[in-house]
């Protein structure tokens, strides 16, 4: 090849590859890496959004305290979507194309994340989902979207198997929500029922945000329910527990991780004592949980500590996975490298859930779940041995 042809070839290559490189490196300067996330930071869903945001900020603060990654400090830009899908999509577009963040640490709740998939996938930006891990987000796997957590179906499956073994031959009652979350819980329960053949005598689906469960609980009482699955989030589960307390019934009750926050125990009062819960995150009352609280106290204010819950842990763990991948890419930080390193994540220990790995070709960490029980006296969930 002549020198002239070689130069033309080089120039053409630069022209063609130039914008791609520039796009891949957005959000990275010599001194800073800018990350972004969208979540509900106002209104009732802020209970999870703010907590998640604190977890991500904690992971970033921890790394920044050690000098950052390869000399670059980390900064987080969080946008509020109010739990409205169209705002999630718009906020993500803003983060990607206006604020030019390097990676994303949250796509809000499960419904919002599913609606955001085309935007995030098309951009190719490294993305961690650690709030609502539902199947459509990781099936089929997308090269840049990584889900840290466990599927609702599998969590419910494990909880039901545990309760079926612990309380054999009992009558079951199930109340679930009318959305994708409720569908997932019902599917998990169906799978467990096929294995253990327990007797469901009462089943009801309620409208999201319903607050009065007097009718449902009365029917559950009449049906003689002895094992009860409260498939709400927080306020719904509290309302169900309070109603059961009023009716003088106390079946063995199981709740699911979106509602497994300590604030729920406080709201439900003594009625919450002894309820079972399933989660892939360690309870705060455990040794691992206490270590996490100690770490959080170093970087978060007293007011912020009051808002720490399991979502702080999922946010922290998700951010740790991303930061580990960014670190492995060294100084030449690109989206391609980060996505490749994220896919190679193996046995990353965060101390607050089982080590995180992504199997070959998978973008789902498939975390191991554990059963825990509420202790109202200490306002804590404790692992069931």
């Amino acid at each position: 090849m002549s020198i002239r042809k070689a130069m033309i070839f080089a120039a053409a290559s630069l022209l063609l590859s130039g914008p791609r490189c520039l796009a891949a490196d957005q959000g990275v300067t010599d001194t800073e890496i800018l990350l972004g996330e969208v979540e509900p930071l106002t209104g009732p869903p802020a209970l999870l959004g703010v907590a998640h945001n604190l977890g991500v900020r904690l992971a970033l603060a921890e790394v920044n305290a050690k000098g950052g990654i390869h000399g670059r400090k980390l900064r987080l830009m969080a946008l509020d979507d109010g739990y409205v899908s169209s705002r999630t999509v718009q906020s993500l577009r803003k983060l990607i194309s206006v604020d030019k963040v390097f990676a994303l640490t949250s796509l809000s709740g499960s419904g919002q994340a599913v609606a955001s998939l085309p935007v995030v996938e098309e951009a190719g930006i490294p993305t961690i989902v650690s709030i609502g891990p539902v199947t459509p987000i990781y099936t089929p796997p997308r090269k840049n979207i990584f889900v840290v957590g466990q599927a609702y179906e599998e969590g419910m499956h494990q909880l039901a198997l545990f309760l079926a073994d612990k309380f054999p031959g009992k009558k079951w009652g199930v109340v679930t929500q009318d959305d994708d979350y409720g569908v997932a819980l019902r599917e998990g329960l169906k799978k467990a029922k096929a294995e253990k053949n327990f007797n469901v005598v009462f089943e009801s689906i309620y409208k999201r945000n319903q607050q009065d469960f007097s009718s449902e609980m009365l029917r559950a009482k009449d049906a003689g329910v002895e094992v009860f699955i409260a498939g709400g989030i927080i306020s719904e589960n509290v309302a169900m527990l309070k109603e059961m307390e009023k009716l003088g019934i106390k079946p063995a009750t199981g709740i699911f991780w979106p509602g497994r926050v300590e604030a729920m125990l406080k709201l439900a009062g003594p009625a919450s004592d002894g309820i079972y819960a399933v989660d892939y995150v360690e309870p705060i009352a455990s040794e691992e949980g206490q270590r996490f609280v100690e770490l959080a106290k170093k970087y978060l204010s007293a007011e912020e500590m009051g808002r720490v819950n399991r979502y702080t842990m999922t946010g922290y763990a998700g951010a740790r996975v991303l930061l580990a991948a960014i670190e492995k890419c060294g100084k030449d930080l690109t989206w391609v490298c980060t996505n490749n390193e994220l896919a190679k994540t193996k046995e990353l220990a965060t101390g607050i859930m089982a080590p995180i790995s992504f199997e070959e070709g998978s973008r789902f960490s498939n975390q191991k779940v554990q059963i825990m029980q509420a202790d109202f006296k200490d306002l804590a969930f404790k692992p069931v041995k």
Partner: protein
Amino acid sequence: MRSGYFKETIAQQIDLTDSAVVRIWLALLVVVLVVAPFLLNPFYLSLLTMMAITMIGALGLNILTGWTGLISLGHVGFMVLGAYAYAISTSTWKLDPLIGLLLAGLVPAFASIVVGIPSLRLTGLYLAITTLAFAFIINQLILEFDGLTQGARGIFVTRPTILGVSFKSDTAFALLCMALAALTLVATLNLRRSRVGRALVAIRDNDIAARVMGIDLTVYKLNAFITSSFIIGVSGALYGMFLSYVTVEGFPFLLSIEALAILIVGGIGTALGAVLGTIFIVLLPEFTSELFSLLGDETARTLSTGAHELKSMLYGVVIILFLRFQPHGLVGLWRDCKRLWVNWPLRF
């Protein structure tokens, strides 16, 4: 000698505009709007698209609430129906997107007859509550008929290819939404100056007087319901395409409230009000965010977790202040500005 500017014929009275200057400005606006999607980055493009979709819905609601005086909180129910009609027809039945868009209008229009007939004797808050109940019933039906609607799982929707033209890219989709918004605007403006439009306004102003003048309240109120729902259904379909995923959860009740806020802030009862209100409400969260960012990172850190709550309150405060000091909405402000311009330096 003429002592002023007078409109002497009915044709002049109902003409959309008789000013060459206005026509030139409108032509320039059209050129800017056609070129803008090719120049804007994806975020501003998505804002423009959302504005166009919201404007279609607001113009639809304006026919029912602004012109006929029937307050509806079931707006979101018609949007959901439109979105599902499009999603089922194109994604499940694999019909042509044009047929999908037509069904997105027809299905809510048919549903509006079902809700419209029992609501004919109702006005004000009673009608608002009835339409609100309708929105909840629609959501429940969608969740129950999961064989057709896939229940709470929702349906993925792809952007359409219409008559061989693909609208898959953000730019093309923005142009499609803006074209439909412009079409809706022209259609509603024409409707307003027709016999039907005048009858609707007469019903709003005094329904007994309108009846005395020979206006059939049943027919015209139903007409308003059907036309409004058809347009709102189309906006729902476009909203579904924008989200690429149609689910009941994606259409919160908040959308109904926002739509009413658009009409009130813009100036109820005018198409221009619906347009200005849309621009204002869609841009307001961005404006408050920008305003908040002026406080700097340090202040945001001091406010900690309360920072976003404060931002959200600021959004509400702006609307309250606006209504307090400009009760006629943005249209009133626009008219004041015009008068000031024409009469300056005299008082307007």
